[in-house]
């Protein structure tokens, strides 16, 4: 039973990684750059949720809307101010700029919110667990422990946060896949990722398409921020950096630029992290995650879903 519980926790954490990784991979595929400030957009989203949820006037749904809006606008503004002027400069300049933006966001958070971690109230606070399994009694969904009086403890508990993270991520991934494959804006994104010049000559506005990509990526980061801070209820100016790096690993693991790759890579990475935490060593779990990346890059440098690039001589 503990294995199932760990697996579900892993999938849940992995779904959050996948949401973040989607932002990395879409921006890489379409704007051809690595947005290392993506992790810090999560942090900003976390604070936006933290502040609005603490305010009396703000109902939960409104604070979610505000969080997504803040991140979306932030992503688009960062692209316009920091990355667009460098569109035709060498990739290294853009990469360094992205790291600069990342530090800028962290330091703004340090100045305004201080370095002290704050306790985040889960969006599912007070809700009963999604599922509890009792030996000999079967499963109970969406209820507090009905056998409390008999002193019976569940052998498997799946928290509401774990459940929400998986369900919300699955819904978003389906919606995103439909959006990319079935709408004209999605087709414009695919066309830009393949051949920006040809897309332009077919009348596609490349700047608008790249802005849209940043908007979607940042909105996904906002959702990931709320889910992550609910599952691991703490927020500090550095909250975004580790998940940001892990999601980047997930994107590379799945094949950077590939949307299904980011989804698979994210979930796999989450499962590997939680299982190695439980069965191997909780201190070494991060090291194991990065080791998996190194092995992957040696065996299959283009990632799980990446295409082999054959160089013409």
């Amino acid at each position: 039973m503990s294995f199932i519980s760990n697996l579900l926790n892993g999938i849940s954490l992995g779904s959050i990684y996948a949401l973040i990784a989607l932002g990395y991979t879409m921006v890489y595929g379409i704007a051809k750059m690595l947005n290392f400030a993506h992790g810090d957009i999560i942090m900003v989203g976390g604070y936006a949720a933290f502040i609005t949820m603490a305010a009396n006037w703000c109902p939960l749904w409104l604070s979610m809307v505000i969080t997504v809006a803040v991140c979306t606008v932030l992503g688009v503004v960062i692209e316009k101010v920091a990355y667009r002027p460098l569109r035709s400069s060498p990739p290294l300049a853009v990469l360094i700029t992205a790291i600069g933006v990342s530090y800028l966001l962290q330091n703004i958070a340090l100045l305004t919110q201080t370095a002290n971690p704050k306790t985040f109230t889960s969006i599912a606070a007070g809700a009963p667990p999604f599922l509890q399994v009792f030996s000999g009694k079967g499963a109970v969904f969406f209820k507090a422990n009905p056998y409390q009086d008999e002193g019976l403890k569940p052998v498997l508990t799946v928290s509401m946060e774990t459940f929400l993270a998986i369900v919300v991520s699955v819904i978003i991934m389906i919606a995103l896949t439909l959006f990319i494959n079935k709408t004209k804006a999605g087709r414009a994104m695919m066309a830009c990722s393949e051949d920006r010049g040809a897309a332009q000559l077919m009348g596609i506005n490349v700047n608008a398409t790249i802005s849209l990509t940043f908007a979607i990526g940042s909105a996904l980061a906002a959702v990931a921020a709320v889910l992550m801070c609910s599952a691991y209820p703490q927020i500090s100016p550095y909250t975004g950096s580790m998940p940001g790096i892990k999601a980047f690993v997930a994107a590379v693991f799945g094949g950077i630029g590939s949307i299904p790759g980011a989804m698979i890579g994210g979930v796999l990475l989450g499962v590997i992290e939680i299982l190695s935490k439980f069965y191997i060593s909780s201190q070494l779990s991060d090291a194991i995650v990065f080791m998996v990346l190194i092995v992957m890059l040696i065996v299959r440098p283009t990632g799980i879903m990446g295409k082999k690039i054959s160089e013409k001589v």
Partner: protein
Amino acid sequence: MSELEKNTPEVQGENTAVEQKAAETSEKSSAPMLEVRELSIQFGGLRAVDGLNLKIKKHQLYGLIGPNGAGKTTVFNMLTGVYKPTSGAIFLDGVNITGKSPVEINKSGIARTFQNIRLFKEMSVLDNVKVGMQNSTKYTTIEGILRLPRYFKEEKLMTERAIELLKVFELDGEKDALSANLPYGKQRKLEIARALATNPKLLLLDEPAAGMNPNETEELMNTIRFVRDKFDMTILLIEHDMKLVSGICEELTVLNFGQELAQGETSAVLNDPKVITAYLGD
């Protein structure tokens, strides 16, 4: 003959000034579909195109030929806004489009194909054509995300139009195939279909017969003629294949080292000793 060549630019300059007035006073319908005046572009010390003049009438099949490196594709890149000309002006249907962005120029009615095929290889044949229809489809991104009724209506309309266009090129059977998996000749056709999907007034074909065998070229000639008649299109093409040029082009301009070497009716131009010299050497 070379002295005569050197003298002509001034004469042409006067001519265009006169013609300009004439064009302004005359009605828009009688204006040429595409008019290029003294178009030049400089890359560092190299004048890649120097004082080019072109006049293409509506419904005309016009050829731009010349030896390798003459500046033909550069002309296409200026016409489509990829390069900004150093000097000169481009008029499409009487409207000045000089220096506009590729997107604006595409919207105002010029579409092109590429010398080395540049289809969206990882997208289906149908989606390639639909990419060309982006700007004529009226639903917003929000409507697309939320799948409001207009999204379905417009997408359905778009698919129908795209399939109709594919039928013209006998590609409707392969509409769901990846465009990279089409045979070469069909990829060329799909590129023309994608360009036509943007609803152009003027179609630019950059070496459409490159890499084709004589049978495929023959078929391509029929396709080009058919496109011109069926869509009432004006076509400007770059080509090396003399059989294709002499077979379908009504008028030609010959470029050599960025300058106009000859201009006029196809048969006359091809028999011009200057042109023969430029191609074969002395």
